[in-house]
């Protein structure tokens, strides 16, 4: 009956999760009893190859990471569809098959476009070209 359902096969995972947490927390607590604690300013300095850090460490970073994450979202969603498609493949008719083929093709077109404009290159040639253009025009 709806509303009374308990996913009992997930109970072991819950227990395992708690056990893992207990191990980690227990280890940390146990360690905190044993380990010394003698901080001084130099020790607490973040690592910077032996120099005092210059500038803000959490600086703005390459936009490439965003593009990767964005593509990851798209592909992850696609993978999610693929899983359910693959599991149910035996029950799926031709429609479903071709539907997925077309789906993959559409995604692939976008992917090929991204490849072409260099979104997948870490060393971005386009960006440099643009920069040159910018400086020329400006």
């Amino acid at each position, binding site marked *: 009956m*709806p*509303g*009374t359902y308990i996913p009992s096969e997930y109970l072991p995972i819950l227990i395992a999760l708690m056990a893992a947490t207990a191990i980690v927390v227990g280890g940390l607590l146990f360690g905190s009893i044993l380990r010394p604690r003698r901080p001084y300013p130099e020790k607490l300095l973040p690592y910077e190859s032996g120099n005092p850090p210059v500038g803000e460490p959490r600086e703005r970073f390459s*936009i490439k990471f*965003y593009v990767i994450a*964005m593509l990851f*979202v*798209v592909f992850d*969603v696609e993978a*999610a569809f693929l899983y359910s498609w693959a599991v149910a493949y035996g029950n799926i008719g031709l429609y479903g098959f071709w539907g997925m083929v077309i789906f993959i093709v559409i995604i692939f077109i976008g992917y090929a476009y991204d490849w072409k404009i260099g979104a997948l290159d870490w060393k971005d040639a386009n960006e440099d070209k643009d920069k040159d253009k910018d400086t020329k025009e400006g």
Partner: protein
Amino acid sequence: MTPVPLEWYLMLGAIVFIIGVFGFLTRRNIIMMLISIELMLNGVNISLLALSHYMQDMRGQVLVFFVIACAGAAVAVGLALMIAAFRNKPTSHMDEMDILKG
């Protein structure tokens, strides 16, 4: 075992949705606003799934699947827009985003 009433689920979905609305209306940061939209979608998803479960029908679940997919696309575009705007003016605050004016 006494079942959990459907209304509880729907209520929960509504509350999450409303928290999302609240966040969307009140936070000044664009990223926070996008996050609030995600919250709203999640509230809806909870309701949809609950209804689907109680009505023993798969349509709600298919819709949830689609909502998740669309949420990803929406966030990707939204953040890209924000980044594009950020280039022109390094801020993520709604109030400051007046580039369209001039």
